[in-house]
């Protein structure tokens, strides 16, 4: 088990390296640069800036500089947010994004699994139809629509909840962004759970459990659900990584000071280092959660246990 974890962590190094390399060069091939503003800067200022940020060096040297700094944990200064370097920006925003993402993840998993299970047990009934329709809506309606609609109803018309901001960090402020963030994922979990539950309920060992007179609660929860959770757990990794690293749209709509906005803002402004920082952050989250999910998978399924 320990050797499995160590091996996986070791294999993360080349993965990160490839991610960094590809995104570094892709970013540079995009036209424009961080200081190409609407009103051009005077040539001397531009030159100074280019020198300060090593942008006057050949591309391969810039790459090596970035790489050697990144290894020591220095992700460079942000070109746009002059007062902070990238590590500070992420360090400040990440706790907000993670807290919001964590609640959204819980809501998505618990809500999705329950809805999906109910739909599977009542296959082709009205309930099943209702759950699946709502989840189709959840997937198809983008959160830049869901967010404002929620705000309109619950903040403006009913005045039950704050319209945005972090406030004092109390849960009230999190409810609307959490729902907006969780809804599409909840829909995915509901669909995944329904599908794998229906499949699980048709397996031979469920027939065995029924043939031996086990109560239906045991048949469904102990036998069908554990097997049905396997594909759901697989989806947990990319989903957790996406939710915990923040969403540009939701954080902008609800003015949450998280890291979600940085990726989009950085990309638009050609803030190379900021984009690179968020890419590395997301990559690390994906790798860590994939590892966690694989361990969880082993706990659920003895056939893939790593020993």
């Amino acid at each position: 088990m320990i050797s499995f974890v160590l091996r996986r962590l070791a294999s993360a190094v080349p993965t990160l390296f490839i991610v960094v390399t590809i995104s570094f060069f892709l970013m540079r091939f995009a036209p424009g640069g961080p200081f190409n503003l609407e009103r051009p800067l005077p040539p001397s200022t531009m030159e100074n800036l280019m020198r300060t940020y090593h942008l006057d060096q050949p591309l391969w040297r810039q790459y090596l500089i970035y790489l050697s700094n990144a290894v020591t944990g220095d992700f460079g200064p942000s070109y746009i947010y002059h007062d902070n370097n990238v590590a500070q920006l992420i360090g400040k925003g990440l706790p907000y994004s993670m807290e919001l993402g964590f609640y959204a993840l819980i809501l998505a998993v618990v809500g999705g699994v329950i809805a999906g299970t109910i739909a599977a047990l009542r296959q082709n009934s009205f309930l099943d139809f209702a759950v699946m329709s709502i989840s189709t809506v959840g997937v198809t309606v983008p959160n830049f629509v869901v967010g404002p609609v929620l705000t309109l109803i619950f903040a403006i018309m009913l005045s039950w909840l704050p319209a945005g901001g972090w406030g004092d960090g109390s849960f009230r402020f999190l409810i609307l962004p959490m729902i907006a963030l969780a809804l599409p994922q909840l829909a995915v979990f509901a669909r995944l759970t329904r599908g794998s539950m229906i499949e699980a309920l048709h397996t031979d060992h469920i027939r065995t459990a029924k043939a031996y007179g086990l109560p239906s609660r045991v048949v469904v929860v102990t036998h069908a659900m554990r097997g049905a959770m396997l594909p759901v757990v697989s989806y947990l990794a990319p989903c957790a990584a996406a939710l915990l690293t923040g969403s540009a749209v939701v954080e902008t709509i609800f003015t949450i000071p998280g890291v979600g906005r940085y990726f989009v803002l950085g990309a638009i402004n050609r803030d190379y280092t900021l984009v690179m920082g968020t890419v590395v952050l997301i990559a690390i989250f994906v790798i860590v959660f994939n590892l966690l999910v694989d361990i969880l998978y082993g706990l659920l399924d003895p056939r893939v246990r790593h020993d």
Partner: protein
Amino acid sequence: MAETKDSILAVRGLTVDFSTPDGTVEAVKGIDLDVNAGETLAVVGESGSGKSQTMMGIMGLLAKNGTVSGSARYRGQELIGLPPKALNDVRGSKITMIFQEPMTSLDPLYTIGRQIAEPIVHHRGGTFKEAKKRVLELLELVGIPEPARRIDSYPHELSGGQRQRVMIAMALANEPDILIADEPTTALDVTIQAQILQLLKSLQKRFGMAIVLITHDLGIVKHFAERVAVMRRGEVVEEGRTTEIFERPKADYTKMLLAAEPSGSKAPPPGHAPIILEGRDVAVEYAIGKGLFGGSSAVFRAVDGVNLRLRQGQTIGIVGESGSGKSTLGRALLRLLPSNGSYRFGTTDISGFDRSTMRPLRRELQLVFQDPYGSLSPRLTVGEIITEGLYVHEPGLGRAERDRRAIAALKEVGLDPASRNRYPHEFSGGQRQRIAIARAMILKPRVVILDEPTSALDRSVQGQVIELLRDLQGKHGLSYIFISHDLSVVKAMSDYVIVMKNGRIIEEGETDAIFETPREPYTKTLIGAAFNV
């Protein structure tokens, strides 16, 4: 039928219907059956006869679109229409079941100890801890070695035979009155099959339970059951004592079933017949257990130094149990997987041939698989499937000529040429196997490797496919390698037999010699298990 005083399960007018998009399918059409205390009743029939659905209906295990009506009284208590809670008191306790698929009938995510304990805990109360002692006794009883260690095993850590023993332990846990065994040995090797049946017999003697054996295999019925009910298309066509049925069958269908046991034999080719395919020192190895950072790597020899010589017009039967390497050997001979050894096809040395150099020879070396469901693409029409090989081997052929050959090939295997515009799912298992044979024959091969071509088919259909294969061999002078675990089919089809075990040849010789005077103990066991149960 009058209810006899010994009858503990009385089935009267039982029907099972399935509603499908194409209308209602009547799987069981009002049958009467009695199970007497302590007896063994065999319910025999081919696929689609309703033999399994009868029992599933009684046990409340039908698929969602199935409905059961009529009456099934267990010791006077009506089971049909019983609410699930009340039915749960009977099933798993008084009436228990074991199933055909020992691989999938157990939950892969729980230890066998826990799964055997579940019916005990739920029917008798108590905790899993308290049930452990009983589970150990049961494992001992069904002959699982080292029960104390095995109790914490997961199903995937056991062999098929052991899993079926675990199922039997589960079935016996609450000392049932009736044990329903639905094709309990069909998925197992013959020697394991014999062991499981003997185990069931001895347990029946000890606990005095009745056994309802659902099977398609008349060989098992003859040696195992006291009474037989023959089912066909949802009806019981004949019922009586086993000896009676076998000696004086009344219904035509029963007579047909009894006659469908493979018969006949094949004469060896003349001594001067040329060797068409030869493999010397054939060996196939797989590396097992390798890790990213080293780790022990072992080599598994699936085929270990086998010599084989196939003459023009000959049929070599390769028999062996699962894992013996018989299928792997067949693929190695066709150069379909990396292997060591030297190979000749006709007068050509094909030892060093790779994919592209083999390609022109492929049309003469064809393969027919076991699974008539998995080996035909569901998205192509039958015509497209059987003519696909022509695109490779005769790319210049026009559409009309391809069509003409497809018609000829379908006619040759006894199918309606119009069927070339239909899709595989519209055909029965036997018809699909004919399609697979047509796909091989359209290329006019010289050697065909038949890998369990009849194993997934009912006996009566099996006989027809064997007839067809024999016809084609006679007509085109084909040479076959016939791979099967089914000794009676091999006996009827081949003139030379190779017995394999663990990748090696245990014994080989002319068919009559092998079957009448086997020398090796393993061959004797195999033949004994297959024909005497």
